[in-house]
């Protein structure tokens, strides 16, 4: 029971990170119908920017008060990662609008290779370890050596991750449903040509979608860095595929779906490693991807897609 609760907490934390990345996939897919394969690498870029900013603030400039440092890191990494997201869209996807369907996917794969190798060459291939910054937590269930019960702990880090995710998700949902930008996005999602006839700046809206997705991915990158303390240039690939799985599982194009899918994938992965085998945890995620796409292509909360001729 204690083990189960602990795994549940761990799964929800991991799932929040996947969910944040998945929102980027789902928004981009919803609006231009392409898989932004490089999105996982944007997440990786975000965590590298967060690491560099953190190190500059703490070791070079000597800030010591952690909450302020983390807030600055968060803002800077969101800004700079957004610039990356914008540039990727501008270089690799915008010129291909209206081209055949697989063209942007191929450039996305190319972009993913470019980003990975750019970071590998410029920052080195070795993993970057960062010692845990936010230790401690609340003990939910005290352990008992006689019965062999484990200590169940909800660490402050996990609380921060889950809380931030909830805040961001609420904020984004409100943004999509209430603001004019959100309205423009929904309009583009339904019919791009009609939206542009009605005066929506389609290119700008799509760019902003990428910027928003990249900003969320950078938050996920920062959290991944703080939670695991180890990053390298390759983290984006696996995290990206799993987040995409989450987006598909939740129903691609649906914001709450992406979050739900993220949480489910996080839980499945953690429970799979906890109760079955750690080695095959990625197989679990990949199999879910295949199964969902084959049997439930519209996902849990998505609308079935009608193919237009």
């Amino acid at each position: 029971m204690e083990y189960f609760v602990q795994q549940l907490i761990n799964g929800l934390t991991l799932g929040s990170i996947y969910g944040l990345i998945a929102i980027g996939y789902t928004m981009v897919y919803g609006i231009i119908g392409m898989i932004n394969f490089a999105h996982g690498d944007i997440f990786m870029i975000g965590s590298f920017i967060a690491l560099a900013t953190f190190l500059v603030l703490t070791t070079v400039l000597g800030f010591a008060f952690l909450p302020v440092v983390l807030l600055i890191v968060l803002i800077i990494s969101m800004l700079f990662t957004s610039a990356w997201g914008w540039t990727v869209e501008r270089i690799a996807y915008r010129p291909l609008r209206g081209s055949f369907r697989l063209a942007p996917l191929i450039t996305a794969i190319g972009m993913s290779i470019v980003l990975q190798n750019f970071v590998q060459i410029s920052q080195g291939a070795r993993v970057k370890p960062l010692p845990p910054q936010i230790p401690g937590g609340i003990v939910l269930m005290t352990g008992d050596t006689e019965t062999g019960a484990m200590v169940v702990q909800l660490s402050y880090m996990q609380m921060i991750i889950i809380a931030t995710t909830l805040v961001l998700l609420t904020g984004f949902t409100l943004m999509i449903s209430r603001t004019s930008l959100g309205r423009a996005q929904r309009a583009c999602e339904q019919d791009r040509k009609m939206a542009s006839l009605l005066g929506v700046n389609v290119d700008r809206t799509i760019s902003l979608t990428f910027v928003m997705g990249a900003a969320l991915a950078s938050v996920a990158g920062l959290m991944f860095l703080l939670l695991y303390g180890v990053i390298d240039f390759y983290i984006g690939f696996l995290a990206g595929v799993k987040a995409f799985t989450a987006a598909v599982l939740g129903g691609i194009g649906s914001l709450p779906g992406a979050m739900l899918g993220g949480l489910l994938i996080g839980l499945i992965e953690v429970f799979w490693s906890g109760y079955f085998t750690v080695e095959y945890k990625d197989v679990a995620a990949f199999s879910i991807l295949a199964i969902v796409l084959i049997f439930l292509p519209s996902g849990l909360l998505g609308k079935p897609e009608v193919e237009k001729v």
Partner: protein
Amino acid sequence: MAAPTVTAPSRQDTNSFAASVKDAAIAGALTGVLGFFFLALRTEIAPGGLEVSTRWGVWIVAILIVFAGRLLLNLFVFKTDKPVTRYFSTGKSSASPRLPWLGRALGIFLFLVATVLPFLIIALFPAQQRQFIDLAILIMTYVMLGWGLNIVVGLAGLLDLGYVAFYAVGAYSFALLSTHFEFIGFWTALPLAGMLAAFWGLILGFPVLRLRGDYLAIVTLAFGEIIRIVLLNWYDFTGGPNGISGIPKPTFLGMDFSRGDDGVAAFLGIEYSTIHRFIYLYYIIFLLAIITNLVTMRLRKLPVGRAWEALREDEIACRSLGINTTNTKLTAFAIGAMFGGFAGSFFATRQGFISPESFTFLESAIILAIVVLGGLGSQIGVVIASVVMIGGIELLRNIGFLSQIFGPDFDPVQYRMLIFGLAMVGIMVWKPRGLVTTREPTAVLKEKKRIGADMVAQGEGH
């Protein structure tokens, strides 16, 4: 990559230079922003934890390069009435009739060169013959893989991101068969490996082929990774990360390339040399590649090949014309997988050792990049792309002056994937249908009409 700004033609001359400079300055500033955390700063692992070092020089050089490059592009391509690229990009009527002839001549020339390549290398570079023949084998392997994937991606239009899985199936089939059964050598295992790979192609293909183009791509990626992870963790069967070693070398009519009396050298009455085996390996992969090419060329003229190309252009139209799309896709998948399997067993016998390391997604991406760079569906393009991307970068290593400019630890192979990725993006943006934009229609009504890439509807066809 600018969408050219719309300016009135009369004002263009006065404004274009200022606009170009402004645009280039924006690009340079953007590079500065993007590169700040990656070029100007570098996190290093130091004894007391991570520390940050700065490299302002690299950062500034990168900004200047982007600024200058963008400025030149603006002045000569994007914002001018006479872009310098007009000579080789738009001249449809004048340039395209030359291409089939040129392509065929180039094909014959490359074929002739390839037939005598090992002897050319021995004659021209006796000191480095082993290294160069090895490189030729590597290039030829990628040519074969590229041609195999071209059937799936280029002809049938199914983006397969897990092609390396079939390569792995071929390699492991041969390795396992030959290490478990004494009597199975390379030549008996080769067809078996191909059949097993094709079988796997069918098994994996059957459930996923109902999917739309981009979903299909992601699922094949997932399958490729699943196979790799299984190979990595199934210790009893595959040896896990240790892989399989001691894979037998191919034999020539039952004789192996050894020094003894029953070796090939003794049989042919020539002096023994280690290079003989490499020459032999080269001819095996050359033969396999040529078979792949011939089969593909023939299949393109058969109904199934035409169905593939029709499928690539428009799946819905295809279905409405009564083509069984599932079967068509499955044959493309299985035949592509079969050639991947052949190449895989060749890889296993050449290396003598295989492990899951060799079958990562990166390998799939390299093969896909070769197909994309060659121009989807073009056979000669795959050859050129492999030679340039695999061979060219390998050769850069040996060029002395580059290491004088960039310092002694400059290793161009490090930049290979970066160049691959950039080239993939560049080619797709500049010429989405590949460098060879004219495609021969294989089915013709009365007279041959030329179909340029831009005339093909690029809308909903998957």
